[in-house]
């Protein structure tokens, strides 16, 4: 008897939970957007800032009634998959997205992951927005990948040119982690520096991704006394330690990178030694952030306890997907329609002050529009916070 009662209670509870779950989504149909990226291990910060940006924006949209695409208003659901920075798992993640009928995916975070998922995405009609710089992903015959940030071969030349003209930089040294992304960024950085007439005094020093003490790594580089030290593709975890080691070794020149960084991580890890460090960011500096950006930061902080400045650039991918679908509702299940819309798409950029636009670019780099127009905001770190050094555009 007791057993029967227990079974009945369990069934009743299950039915109640099911009913409640249905009730939550009863108002709007659900539009699933995928995320495949690294959310564990040493590079977890990259993917987690992606995932949390998407979840924050989705929760915000759902709370305010949903997102209107055509005549239907959708609640947004983010489906995430941790690829552990392993291309094999990236493929598994993209397969999962295909099985769930998802056509729009943000990620992966690395070149090899993004290259690996290309056949799966193209075969299953998935548009994906990687944070990877390999040009072959975005250049024909590739069709389904859209670069979700500014590539280093776009930001690097702009930064070096600025520093050459404004700060008198003549010599430059490069340091990179011994991984595919940082190494490829170093190669293109060296080429860009040479094209500008800068003298490259060191470009062969690398470090293991698990390095914890950078003094021995940097010692031979600092001996070359470059005007500019470029930390190619440096992760937020390594940046403060590299800066600290360079300054403690007596280096007085400029230090820059073409990746996004986090102000708190720099503040804690390098303190005042990070003053003057130049990096690429989004639109959260007070000079540029719109009220929507400030609201996003507030909501992200409320949801996850702490904001990550990398999300200044990572807030954009989901916004682009939804705004493009709103511009052409037929694209919701047909990526060919999405691709057609990309050529002419334009919408106001909600996260920046002024008349900034959301639009697709990339014709110069990839011969087709396969890049979202994120503002190229070059920041300098001063006394614990980022300040905008200059803003440029990319095509």
């Amino acid at each position, binding site marked *: 008897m007791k057993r029967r009662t227990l079974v009945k209670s369990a069934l009743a509870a299950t039915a109640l939970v099911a009913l409640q779950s249905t009730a939550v989504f009863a108002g709007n149909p659900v539009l699933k957007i995928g995320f495949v990226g690294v959310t564990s*291990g040493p590079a977890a910060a990259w993917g987690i800032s992606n995932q949390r940006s998407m979840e924050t924006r989705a929760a915000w949209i759902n709370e305010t009634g949903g997102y209107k695409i055509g005549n239907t208003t959708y609640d947004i659901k983010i489906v995430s998959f941790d690829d552990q920075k392993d291309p094999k798992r990236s493929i598994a993640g993209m397969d999962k997205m295909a099985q769930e009928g998802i056509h729009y995916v943000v990620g992966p975070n690395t070149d090899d992951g993004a290259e690996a998922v290309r056949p799966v995405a193209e075969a299953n009609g998935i548009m994906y927005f990687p944070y990877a710089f390999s040009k072959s992903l975005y250049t024909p015959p590739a069709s389904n990948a859209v670069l979700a940030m500014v590539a280093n071969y776009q930001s690097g030349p702009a930064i070096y040119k600025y520093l050459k003209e404004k700060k008198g930089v003549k010599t430059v040294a490069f340091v990179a982690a011994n991984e595919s992304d940082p190494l490829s960024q170093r190669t293109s950085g060296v080429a860009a520096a040479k094209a500008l007439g800068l003298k490259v005094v060191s470009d062969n020093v690398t470090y293991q991704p*698990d390095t914890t003490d950078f*003094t*021995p790594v940097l*010692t031979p580089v600092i001996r070359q006394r470059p005007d500019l030290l470029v930390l190619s593709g440096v992760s937020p975890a390594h940046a403060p*330690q590299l800066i600290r080691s360079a300054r403690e070794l007596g280096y007085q020149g400029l230090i820059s990178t073409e990746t996004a960084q986090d102000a708190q*991580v720099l503040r804690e*890890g390098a303190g005042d030694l990070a003053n003057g460090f130049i990096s690429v960011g989004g639109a959260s500096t007070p000079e540029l952030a719109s009220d929507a950006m400030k609201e996003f930061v507030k909501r992200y902080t409320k949801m996850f306890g702490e904001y990550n400045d990398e999300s200044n650039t990572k807030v954009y991918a989901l916004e682009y997907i939804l705004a493009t679908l709103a511009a052409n509702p037929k694209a919701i299940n047909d990526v060919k329609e999405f691709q057609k819309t990309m050529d002419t798409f334009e919408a106001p950029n909600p996260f920046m002050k002024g008349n900034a636009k959301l639009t697709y670019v990339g014709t110069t780099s990839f011969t087709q529009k396969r890049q979202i127009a994120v503002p190229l905001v070059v920041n300098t770190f001063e006394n614990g916070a980022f300040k905008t050094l200059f803003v440029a555009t990319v095509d």
Partner: protein
Amino acid sequence: MEQVLANGIYLGAQYAMIALGLTLIFALMNVLNFAHGQMYVIGGFVTYTIYGQLGLPYIVALLASCVTLAVLGALIERFLFAPVIKGSAREESTMLLAAGIAFLLDALILLIFGEKQRGVPKIVNGVLNWDFRIIMPYDRILICGLAIFSIVAFIAFMQFSRTGRALRALAQDRTAAQLMGVNVDRYSTIGFALGAMLAGLVGGLLVTITGINLGMGGPTSIKAFMMVMIGGAGVISGAIAGGFILGFMEAIGLAVLSQYGDITYLVIFISLMIFLAIRPQGLMGKPWG
């Protein structure tokens, strides 16, 4: 050359500290603790929270790291490893358990401390610059000194204290120790707690130099295994030797080989393979285990 030597001593001291706890646990229980790196990371995060966030004195934070990890280690041994060791004679059971604990701790670290790199204010400011022949920040010198002091204190504890003697007896022959009246269960727990405490101590020391993030656990465990294999598994002096050998190899490799690209660890791994092919028990290990 002076700089290379200074870097070697500094790296060697911190590596030896990391390897000590791992080899102690292996010696006592024949357990390869894959979660050792994660324990080191937790030690770093405890110091970060107490010293960096709450602003309490560094020494309090360091002690808190040691105590937290000792308690965590004791609990893990008592409630996880001890039952598995009693219930299964297969070594892979404890290896799987250790790997599972490593994943669990990684997930807990992410939940509690987040994904970001964390750092604490410097405990000593300033840089020693000896005519550009040796450049070494004072905090590294201090941490290096503390690491060497801790190693000496640990050796003295193992050599001269009653607990240390019991632990050594346990490591030499578990059955004989039991027959001599050593409470094997109790000292296994104490030994595991001590090994975990050493991981916490080195985490608390190094967070002031390198900062800490959740991804440091796995690579730290791998380096610790390398040192233990070089010195000889389960031999305390071997772990110290392994740590200093790896530290010097890394310092020399980075200075001499950097012009050829990042081949330092390639050379180290090839050397290790050749070395283990010739002497599989390591420098000070016994061929019979």
